[in-house]
């Protein structure tokens, strides 16, 4: 009920302009998505992969990662996020983000569990410009869905929040996991 109340008062589609103002890739930019919808998309994904960057170590975000991992979404730990995730007891696999997008692009990659590639990627806790640029690889060269549940609008994602204040961002994450 609390999550529903949060969803009602929260609009995560506002201010959907690239956080780095000049980062306008072209005609196809991410659809701004409400947190509830983002949660539903993730819950329906057949082979989701949560890709967690170093900034996910911030308070509040790490609990969301834990919850999503507990819901069975495999976690790829990029940058140096693995250290914090391990300290928190969250099961994750380290991978370099640039290498990961090249793996995701490869139809022969068997995934981290040997069961095949992923059809949906969920980005959380990333250095903005780094993740944005590597989402563009997935956007242009794969059919993989890209959902950004980070704090800032990512034009190269398929779906993204707008630019959010920290408190709204944390509320939005609660709404997302409530859908899982």
């Amino acid at each position, binding site marked *: 009920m609390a999550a529903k109340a949060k969803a009602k008062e929260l609009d995560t589609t506002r201010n959907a*302009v*690239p*956080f*780095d*103002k000049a980062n306008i*890739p*072209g*005609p*196809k930019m991410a659809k701004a998505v409400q947190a509830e919808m983002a949660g539903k998309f993730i819950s329906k994904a057949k082979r989701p992969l949560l890709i967690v*960057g*170093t900034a996910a170590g911030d308070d509040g975000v790490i609990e969301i990662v834990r919850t999503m991992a507990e819901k069975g979404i495999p976690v790829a730990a*990029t*940058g*140096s996020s*693995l*250290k914090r995730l*391990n*300290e928190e007891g969250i099961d994750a*696999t*380290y991978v*370099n*983000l*640039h*290498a990961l*997008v*090249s*793996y995701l*692009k*490869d139809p*022969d*990659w*068997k995934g981290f569990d040997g069961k095949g590639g992923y059809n949906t990627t969920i980005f959380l806790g*990333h*250095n*903005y*410009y*780094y993740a944005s*640029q*590597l989402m*563009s*690889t997935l*956007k*242009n*060269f794969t059919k993989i869905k890209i959902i950004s549940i980070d704090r800032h609008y990512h034009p190269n994602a398929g779906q993204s929040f707008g*630019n959010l204040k920290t408190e709204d961002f944390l509320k939005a994450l609660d709404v997302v996991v409530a859908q899982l």
Partner: protein
Amino acid sequence: MVIKKGRFTIEGLENVQINIGKVTSSDEAEEPQGPTPAPDIHGLRDWDMRLLKRYEPVYSPICDLCCYCTYGKCDLTGNKEGACGINMEAHQAREAMIRTLTGAAAHAGHGRHLLNHLIKRFGADHPIDAGPSNIKAPVTQTVLGVKPETIGDFVPVLDYVEEQITQLLATAHLGQEGSAIDFESKALHAGMVDHVGMEVSDIIQISCLDMPKSQADAPLVDMGMGLIDSTKPVLLCIGHNVAAVTYIMDYMDEHDLFDKIELAGLCCTAHDMTRINTRAKVVGSLSKQLKYIRSGIPDLIIVDEQCIRADMMQETSKLHIPVIATNDKVMYGLPDRSKDDIDDIIRDLASGDQPGVLLFDYDKVGELAPKLVMKMAPIRKEKGITALPDDAEFKKLASSCTQCGACVIGCPQGLEIDKAMEAAAEGDLTLFEELHDKCIGCGRCEFECPKKIPILNVIEKAAQKVIREEKGKLRTGRGQVGDAEIREEGVNLVMGTTPGIVAIIGCPNYPDGSRDVYEVAEEMLQRSYIVVASGCSAMDIGMFKNEEGKTLYERYGGGFLKGNLLNTGSCVSNGHITATAIKVAAIFAGRDISGNFEEIADYVMCRIGAVGLAWGGFTQKALSIGTGCNRLGIPVVLGPHGPKYRRAYPGKAYDKDKWNILDSRDGSVHNVEPAPEHLLITAENKAELMPMLAKLCFRPGDNNLGRMIKLTHYIELNEKYLGVLPDDWHIYVRGEADLPLAMREKLLKILEEEHGWKIDWNKKKILEGPARKVDISFQPTNVPRLCKGAVE
């Protein structure tokens, strides 16, 4: 009799004139020549394809459109084709190639300008003397198959470089190349010729301008914004090409002016100034440029070429700082006063009638600059010119910020300027002091601010305390690594007892401030890696001190030895980094290098644990330097801005078929560990970078001791920065002797329990498990023709 180029007549045969165009030494005639002297753009394509098959290019478009011709704009999103038929992948490859070419052209253009100038000044027969080496120009020799002896011998070398650049650029035209993989091969070619151009540029200036020649104990010089004595007239030189500045230094020496004028440099010109005269000072790297101009301290600015701000005249004219442009690559619309009287020029600049001039007569530059700066200093001091606000203005500016966040969105680093502004309005400067080092000084924030706050000035004013303390030391650029050093150290490198070479190159667009490169260098030095630095990174490494107040250059030797820190010099000295790897192949392994690029690159990739790091790379030159390293088989890591270069060459460790390698003794195929795992890759932050650097020093040719040492560092760094054992450490284990001694028992247990390897616990031996065993005679190669019995 020494035969030189030129024309002469013989007594008695006055009507006969003999012209000598090129003098070929007997050595040159005898030098074994490899299969690809002076390769054209397809000459090394086979080698490129070997690289690109293993390290498949991955593209990260920064723009989904192609705006290259008037067919367009074309939307290539999703790898669609544009009107000309090019798809997104090929377009991105073309974009990367064009940028690589731009970088190569910048270095080669620099080299050509310098070569013309030095030939005019010293003569084409001026001998090459870059240090005590028999291999005088390793990159040139490997690529072109020639052994230059005089600076004039470099004329045809640059002719070759320029021809390749022209031919490559032609392929970018509409209706030419359409294949991504061939654009990549062309980019690799551009990177390779860039290293030739850089080598030429640096060797000729070392030879003619008396710079340190392979000098491990090259002198230390002062560096930092905080050490410039602003009570004296301050003459600031910015750019990369030291030609004009040498005349200023000569004039100042002759007229005993070094005590009266602060002569300072910024960016690579500063490197080269101190290589010539240690009384010159270094302000710092490129990121200090706008900040230092805004400080109002310089009384006169001399610019040459490369990495100079495009808005120089807008910035300097506001502060009544005259600018003298000395190179036709950067002319700012200024009038050419080269033929005018010095006093007239000084009058017009001092009065402000002209904000700057072009001056291509370097004798005049040498005399004019010291005279003008001494005239400008009292004029400017009297007016109290600075862009920085006083205390009252500062508070007013900080208080006028509404925390709208436009500056944050405009900042390439996403720095939280708004929060720092809010704190500053309350009198707390700590956020600005922290932000100062992370700020790259681009000034984009100011264009976004709806209140028109001069944000950069506010940052600099707030960080005055920190800036005053910015005093470091730089070991002046030493140039090449000498043959004797290679003989001494080569065996350690190839055997792996020196765990690797980390070459920290490139620009200061660091993701988290300049301290990162200092910390990377320090940690790798402590671990006995050889750390080589150049350009802006070499400067930033020297800006930080330990508890005893010593910089890394004061704490570590400058020789080519494990645990040493070498500053090769300015941007063009990067050619010496690839040259060092070539020398190891030539001197330690006895490989013929002339016109033999593929074999040498293959050797480097299989044997020499070297990795490049362009942590703050953002220029086209940084890309071309890295791409040239890649073609020679040296992996490169970029910082998180790196994907904006649009492509990388990551490896796929899981794809076993990509890691087949030959044994040149019999041509047999061996499936080996992924070493090096990537050819061009990015890292998100320093913590991710550290173990990656160690890992990229693995090579298939490592012996047990070398692999054990490399594995020790990889595991330790991974545990330190990522908190766990790396999940792939075991794939680098070929036998128990590869295991780090201190962890051997623990690791054997993990191999048995988690990976199912069979262990003989009595003998502590691995019985089954590794993908391959060590064979000390194994001669790894990627090139079939290099195998015994191969048919050419």
